[in-house]
């Protein structure tokens, strides 16, 4: 039940021992501290209802309720690793037998690395599941968030709003989801939280100061868009796919974040190639 903290020259990340979740991020150089709660949740995939027979499928994301479920039964198990040379410090979170996470701080690196591992998603309960990673902060974002478009122009998104027509919002979650090809961020007047992802994902900000990314999904329904199969890949072991990926977090002033996420994105998306040779 102790709080856990990892730190490098740039960031201090604190975890709440009572909840087992990330509690705050401090940018040491900028003197910014923001309460950041990060959790792993899942939406129950819709199999259609009285309003619409549309099921959640490969093309269509449609949760059957707007409130996601916890991936953990109770609080996640928390452990910390700090090696002797302090090149890297890691905090491990086990949310359940199919959801884990590692949060890393490397010496000299100005970003927080979050490595998530999800799967095989259990579906014995006959519920399709769409897993999200959600970050909650106290930033006054008022429904605005920003997503990229294939790493090119970053577009302003606004909850329940379209800039060129009057929107009658019928899907409170899916109707606010947008493609996130490389980054999503939220900010208020001073502070910006940026999340870079290692693959295209769906993402949104459904309430002020919050952002979320869908990281894995396994469905039993089919969205009737022509494929004719549920998105239910079982993998070589027959029990469903395990997916592992990374998010990189930046928390800084709005003005300095713009440069930082562009430079970091270059290093991530043009990452060095590693090969080995017998000696």
């Amino acid at each position, binding site marked *: 039940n102790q709080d856990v903290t990892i730190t490098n020259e740039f960031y201090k990340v604190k975890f709440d021992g009572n909840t087992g979740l990330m509690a705050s991020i401090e940018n040491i150089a900028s003197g910014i501290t923001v309460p950041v709660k990060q959790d792993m949740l899942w939406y129950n995939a819709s199999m259609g209802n009285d309003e619409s027979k549309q099921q959640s499928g490969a093309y269509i994301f449609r949760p059957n309720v707007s409130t996601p479920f916890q991936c953990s039964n109770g609080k996640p198990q928390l452990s910390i690793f700090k090696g002797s040379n302090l090149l890297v410090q890691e905090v491990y979170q086990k949310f359940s037998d199919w959801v884990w996470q590692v949060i890393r701080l490397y010496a000299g690196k100005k970003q927080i690395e979050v490595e998530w591992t999800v799967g095989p998603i259990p579906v014995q309960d006959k519920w399709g599941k769409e897993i999200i990673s959600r970050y909650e902060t106290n930033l006054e974002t008022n429904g605005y968030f920003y997503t990229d478009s294939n790493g090119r122009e970053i577009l302003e998104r606004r909850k329940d709003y379209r800039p060129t027509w009057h929107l009658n919002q019928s899907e409170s979650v899916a109707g606010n989801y947008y493609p996130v090809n490389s980054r999503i961020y939220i900010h208020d007047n001073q502070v910006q939280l940026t999340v870079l992802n290692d693959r295209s994902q769906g993402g949104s900000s459904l309430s002020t100061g919050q952002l979320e990314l869908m990281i894995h999904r396994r469905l039993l329904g089919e969205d009737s868009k022509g494929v004719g199969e549920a998105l239910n890949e079982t993998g070589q072991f027959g029990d469903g796919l395990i997916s*592992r990926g990374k998010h990189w977090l930046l928390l800084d002033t709005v003005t300095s974040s713009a440069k930082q996420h562009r430079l970091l994105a270059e290093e991530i998306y043009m990452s060095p190639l590693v*090969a080995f040779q*017998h000696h």
Partner: protein
Amino acid sequence: SSSKVLRDAMGVAQHHDAVSGTSKQHVANDYAKRLYEGREECNKVISTALTGNNEQLIFCDYLNITLCDLTQSSNQFVVMVYNPLARGVSKYLRIPVNCDDHYVYVVDDLATSTRLTVQLVPVSEATLSVRRNRGSANCELVFLAKLPALGHNTFQVTKHKTSKTVSLLKTKVEKVI
């Protein structure tokens, strides 16, 4: 001409909106196979480019789950790292290795003839679960690779037997239930 195999596979994949769950499973398997075969051909091209001869480099596709037959079983190997960016970068590498108290790992930057600071990180419970009994690496060897712009650097990793028992993993592991 070797890179054409991957170029063709990418063309098929992009045209058919592959790898997004919008095809039947056996079709997705075919996309994956085509991409795999394309990558294998390109690995040969990269090997030739980096080594200057026909010596084949080994590319470990499962480094993300700490799985690499060469590094986990070898006492000495070379890591070649190519940086495609037009500026120098530094990147932390995580190499799957077998560690215990009787051995130490040393990493030499062959370009500058300097010995690097290394850290051994035990494989996490999540990784062990994901690997499902494949591979034997119980640690990741972490070091910072400094790389030139549009070029590569080479690092030699050597596993030395220690003369006395030294605790490699001076770890502070704390479990909060």
